């Protein structure tokens, strides 16, 4: 079984997600697709799996043309895709989750489910991938790695020849990752062709036979995993001298002498954040590293008053500060760039101007001042380099990177003294990243305090002046300088 793709290309609006990409998946081999955030890895896998239709290029399956119309169609042709997001329905049983796409197979003539028969088949799927999960297990007792394994069992229940795993390890801790890697090896030994996306290099090297490296949607090359070294892969992924990369030089550290903008004292928020003490000073970027759920999001929610503090307290500019809601936070000079741009950061329906002036619309009494809003928006568009025809253009017409610049602009429009940024460059192309980094550094040198939470390690190393590593809701380590700090130095504290 050989799946060959040649010259695949895909565009989303203004953004070229993938261009001219070729990849070959072979029986009994694990083929990893690697690249930085936004390199186009998921897009490629989704094209192979029928979730995204390519704009150009050709695919063949054992020499026959392969044009999947949907993931269902791809499955029928023997290519199964496991999505990146966990898609387990928690109100169904393990067996029902595995057969959710084909429940009729296990139903009697009146549509009544034959549960016993289904449980046996489900258990067989689970056993086949070699995981010790019982079909009678309660879904809520399972961890994310086990849920991922159930999804893999679901994918192979259709008996595919090719399995595509999209960043299956993104949310998992290292033990869970090991379990998934184990499953991958098990399936490989049965002769399945496996395509695998990850941006964690160590995983890739642990599991892959072949590698395809992508950079900014472009095809860099395909290699045998044994023939390239890790730092070589890294160089190819980044594609530029890492030292003179996209991160602007740090300004000489004035920050250590500056006054703290925000002090967090033994704060606890929700279930995620247990007890955390931090200080971010004017003029510095404090990085927050941690796995998803380690507490950074909860901390932000606490600081902006979106969730109440369970205990502990906050001080803003040396004065006690009790955030009651996001409105109060903005009034106190705290701007917040949420992690989910589409649902929390930007009103896509509205114009660039509408979004830019949203946090503090210029007004005379109750009346909105369009003239001042125009001046404000023109200024911000120029300052941040937002590529748009004009402020009146709808955000729908922008690329992802420029949408994110609009959210950055919305934050800067209120002239904040503290800026919270949650994964500010997620899904943002390299050009827009550079501009976001530039403006962050510029504003920091003007005295803005920035809290930067990110899942992108190079970004934290490149941008943060200091770094706090969170795990299970507490700070487990602080780096006072990020000179000479390597990715794995940070990661070892995260897991």
């Amino acid at each position: 079984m050989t799946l060959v793709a040649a010259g695949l290309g895909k565009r989303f609006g203004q953004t070229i997600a993938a261009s001219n990409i070729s990849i070959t998946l072979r029986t009994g081999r694990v083929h990893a697709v690697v690249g930085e955030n936004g390199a186009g890895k998921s897009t490629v896998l989704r094209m192979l799996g029928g979730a995204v239709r390519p704009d150009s290029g050709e695919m063949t399956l054992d020499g026959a043309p392969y044009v999947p119309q949907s993931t269902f169609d791809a499955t029928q042709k023997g290519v199964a895709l496991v999505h990146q997001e966990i898609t387990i329905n928690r109100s169904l049983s393990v067996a029902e989750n595995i057969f959710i796409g084909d429940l009729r197979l296990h139903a009697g003539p009146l549509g009544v489910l034959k549960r016993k028969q289904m449980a046996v088949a489900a258990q067989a799927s689970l056993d086949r991938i070699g995981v010790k999960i019982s079909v009678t297990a309660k879904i809520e007792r399972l961890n994310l790695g086990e849920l991922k394994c159930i999804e893999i069992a679901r994918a192979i229940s259709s008996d595919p020849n090719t399995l595509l795993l999209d960043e299956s390890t993104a949310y998992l801790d290292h033990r869970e990752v090991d379990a998934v890697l184990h499953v991958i090896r098990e399936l490989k030994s049965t002769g399945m062709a496996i395509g695998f996306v990850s941006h964690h290099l160590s995983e890739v090297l642990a599991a892959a036979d072949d590698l395809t490296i992508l950079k900014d949607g472009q095809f860099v090359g395909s290699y045998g995993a044994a023939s390239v070294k890790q730092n070589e892969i890294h160089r190819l992924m980044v594609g530029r001298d890492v030292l003179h990369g996209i991160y602007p030089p740090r300004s000489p550290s004035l920050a250590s002498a500056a006054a703290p903008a925000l002090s967090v004292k033994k704060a606890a928020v929700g279930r995620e954040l247990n007890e955390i003490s931090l200080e971010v000073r004017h003029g510095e970027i404090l990085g927050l590293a941690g796995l998803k759920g380690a507490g950074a999001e909860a901390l932000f929610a606490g600081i902006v008053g979106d969730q109440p503090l369970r205990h502990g307290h906050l001080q803003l500019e040396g004065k006690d500060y009790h955030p009651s809601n996001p409105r109060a936070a903005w009034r106190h000079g705290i701007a917040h760039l949420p992690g989910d741009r589409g649902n929390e950061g930007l009103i896509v329906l509205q114009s660039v101007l509408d979004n830019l002036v949203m946090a503090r619309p210029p007004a005379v009494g109750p009346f909105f001042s369009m003239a001042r809003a125009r001046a404000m928006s023109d200024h911000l568009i120029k300052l941040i380099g937002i590529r748009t025809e004009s402020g009146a253009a709808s955000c729908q017409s922008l690329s992802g990177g420029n949408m994110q610049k609009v959210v950055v602009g919305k934050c800067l429009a209120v002239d904040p003294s503290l800026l919270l940024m949650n994964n500010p460059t997620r899904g943002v192309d390299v050009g827009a990243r550079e501009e976001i980094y530039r403006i962050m550094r510029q504003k920091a040198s003007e005295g803005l305090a920035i809290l930067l939470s990110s899942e992108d390690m190079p970004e934290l190393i490149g941008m943060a002046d200091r770094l706090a590593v969170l795990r299970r809701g507490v700070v487990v380590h602080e780096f006072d300088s990020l000179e000479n700090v390597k990715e794995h130095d940070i990661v070892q504290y995260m897991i």
Partner: protein
Amino acid sequence: MSEAMKADSHGGTVPAGQGGLKGLPIDQLRRGFPAIFLVILVIVFTIMSPRFLSLDNLSTVLEQGTVLLVAALGGTFVIMSASIDISVGSILAVSALVAALTADTLGALAIIPAVAVGAMCGCFNGLLLAVGKVPSFVATLGTMVVYRGVVLYFTRGAPVDIKNDQFLDAYSSISFGIPHTVMIGLALAVMAWAIFKFTVFGREVLAIGGGERVSILTGIAVTRVKILMFTLLGALCGMAGLLQGARTLAATSQLGLGLELDVIASVVVGGTPLTGGLGSITNTFLGVLIITLLQNGMNMAGVDPYLQNIIKGLVLITAVFINIDRKKIGIIK
């Protein structure tokens, strides 16, 4: 994982991005829909009934449409914010009753209690959904019955006549050939248009409709704006009740029955989608004209009265079918 995020967030923009090129005619068609529909209606009814286009009839249309216009102005704000209010007809009935009960003593000043009670009813709706977090459809479904029940309870189903001359002079006579109701309706329309166009409140309503979570996180006082907007709608329904009472010379428990359908239809037929985030008062003005002309034209053309509701309902569904943003369909609150 970030790539999937990217793909997803782009996924949302793809159709729109293409809309700039391929989808343009459809977009324009949508925008032009109310005007086109209005022209078609006028042509059809003129053919069916020559008297339809007479000055006499058109001024009747304006007069008939005023009550609906006043209520629909408030409805526009609520629908633009992606909420809905189906208690409008009941608020109208309450206010008409208050106007009828106070007209004898207060004369034209009965407008004050009538509008105030309407505003209170609206404010209560707003509190229910903004503070109590009851979805607006359910909240106003409940208060629709409650408010109507209040009217029935006090009137025991009997009409309350309005006989005060000062009141009737102010709200149901004619100056310079124009009925006072029409003048009031148009003045309120201009006011609503200005509120929407020139105030921060108007922008906040649109922002909430475009993305409630975004609005909350950006520091918009969403709770306050929602209460304010439902109060505004209540006050306008109060005014509509007063005008309706003045037209019918009495307040009855049946006033405003089915008004919610006409209000929603006017707003939506005018081009404001139920999913919120878009729309304007001028759109609603067109929508009110369409709904009123449709009603009036069907009467003029002698369409079976028992058929008329079927046609009105179909027009509403057609408008929603054309206008609604299906990606957002799950979040009509």
